């Protein structure tokens, strides 16, 4: 009896663990449309601190639009967003960055003419403040700031194992590496919430494995909360703590990977059953 109790205390089940976690972000009844096109209809879900939250669904389901709402790029016509317990007013994307929300893009959105190092350094734009007059003479605060941020960026470069391409213009890198540099740039923003829009699209198996490892490491070592859009079901099942499923702009399921996998609506959506 006693032994059983201790057993249960040391190995709490996954559901209990998530339940005890604090809420980082919540969207309530969010709707977004472009002219006549309804991209998102009345969606509510939450993201808990420290979890990996997958957002899945067929093409055009509204996943990317959802991320764009979360980072202030789109403004929903209806609904509210609660960030760290406070209802958020309408914000601009750069404000989202300073509040701790960073993202990567479905189509790589790097600065093609800049080196890997400069791309990642650009991720620290909001954190760097040195006055233009110090910059002009590369003096005092400007130089100290540059070095301080360079150190952080070098840590990220080591972490993602991209030392060798530090000076390469990113336009010349293969696609898989570009995706990795984009992750590095997002990490440079030191986000509390990291939004990843199909980070493994177009990658081969080996690259996917690397990327999965990095995502898990980011989550575990830095405690970064991650919202992940991904089409590869294997990856989603392996990485995520909870999954929200969208279809035609509506939420059709929400739960642990196992729960979602067995959900009839989800199976229908993926098999393309007529609505």
């Amino acid at each position, binding site marked *: 009896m006693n032994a059983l109790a201790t057993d249960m205390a040391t190995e709490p089940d996954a559901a209990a663990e998530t339940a005890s976690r604090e809420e980082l972000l919540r969207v309530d009844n969010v709707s977004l449309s472009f002219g006549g096109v309804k991209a998102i209809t009345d969606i509510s879900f939450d993201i808990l601190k420290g979890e990996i939250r997958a957002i899945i669904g067929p093409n055009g389901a509204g996943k990317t639009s959802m991320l764009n709402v979360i980072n202030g790029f789109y403004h929903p016509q209806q609904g509210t967003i609660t960030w760290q317990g406070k209802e958020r007013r309408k914000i601009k*994307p750069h404000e989202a960055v300073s509040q701790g929300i960073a993202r990567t893009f479905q189509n790589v959105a790097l600065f093609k003419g*800049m080196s890997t190092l400069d791309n990642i350094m650009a991720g620290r734009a909001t954190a760097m403040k040195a006055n233009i007059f110090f910059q002009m003479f590369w003096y005092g605060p400007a130089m100290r700031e540059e*070095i301080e941020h360079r150190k952080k960026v070098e840590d990220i470069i080591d972490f993602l194992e991209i030392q060798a391409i530090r000076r390469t213009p990113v336009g010349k890198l293969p696609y898989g590496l570009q995706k990795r540099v984009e992750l590095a740039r997002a990490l440079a923003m030191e986000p509390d919430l990291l939004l990843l829009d199909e980070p493994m699209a177009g990658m081969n198996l080996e690259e996917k494995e690397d990327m999965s490892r990095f995502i898990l490491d980011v989550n575990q070592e830095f405690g970064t909360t991650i919202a992940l859009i991904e089409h590869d079901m294997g990856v989603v099942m392996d990485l995520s703590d909870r999954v929200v499923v969208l279809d035609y702009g509506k939420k059709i399921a929400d739960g642990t990977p196992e729960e979602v996998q067995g959900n009839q609506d989800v199976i229908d959506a993926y098999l393309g059953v007529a609505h």
Partner: protein
Amino acid sequence: MIFRTAGQYKTSYEADQALFPVKQDFYLVLGILLLGYVVFPLTASEFTFKALLVPVLIYALAALGLNILTGYCGQLSLGTGAFMGVGAYATYKLMTIVPEMNIFAAIFLSGFFSAAVGVAFGLPSLRIKGFYLAIATLAAQFFLVWLFEKWAWLYNYNASGAIEVATSSVFGITVTGPTALPIVQYYCVLIVVTLVTWVAINLTRGRYGRMWKATRDMDIAAELVGIKLMTAKLTAFAVSSYIVGVAGGLLVFFWKGAAEPNLFDIPLSFQILFIAIIGGLGSILGNFLGAILIVALPVILNLIPSTLGIPVDSATLEHLNVMIVGALIIAFLILEPHGLARFYAIIREKFILWPFPY
């Protein structure tokens, strides 16, 4: 000169972020400075100063200013000539109002006027891009030259409508006006150009440079990584117009000696744009290479007939010059959009790897 980066390991980020992390680059720049500050002054003739060295430096500086805006920040401007005019007229007015002012102080101050005007005309860039922005800057070009003509206060109500540079001196040496020695004026220009170029290098390799380049490469992504596009674009307009304005002040006070409004008209804007394109957009060095080419070409063309003994009239040479420059621009735009600076980069790369090309 042989480039070797092997064996030059950086033990600190300070060292890696030094102006010239590769030692050979440092020697190269030292060599160029030596040429500019010692060799040329010792050897050049009055003609060389006036027809080659001084104009190369001034045009290179103006192109550098334009390059900050167009090459680094991706905002095309067709109004460079007019912004040079703002710098020139501002210097002129400052020197009339306070005649005892140091001419360098006047030129560096006048840059703030062109910067302010640049920011004002840069405001549309927050709304429009590309072709439409280029047209907006063209409107600035027309408006400003019109202002230089119509606003008599700017040229002190001279009957000629032109501004004329009065004699002024620094530390007892005459630096402007008809009696100033070409070698003195050359040094004045060289010092200003060196200083401004160094500042431009610092700005482009740091936080602002990254903001500008990010805005150029993908403005939406720049915004989404937290870069304020407004700050990026307006600082680019300000810094660019400042440098262009300083170049305008130098143009009139240390080279031409006098100027009419039409000096700052569209042909000047295009000449500077061509230098930036041929030299290489997004490069500092390129502006100098481009300026050397554009300034030297007509001079060399002029020398050919007399040395070869072929009689060619000057109008034909003029046409020939325009044709060659036009062909070069088209060739560069199609074949090597990064201009002469890229050739240098390729050669440098080859030397670093030499003799093992892999």
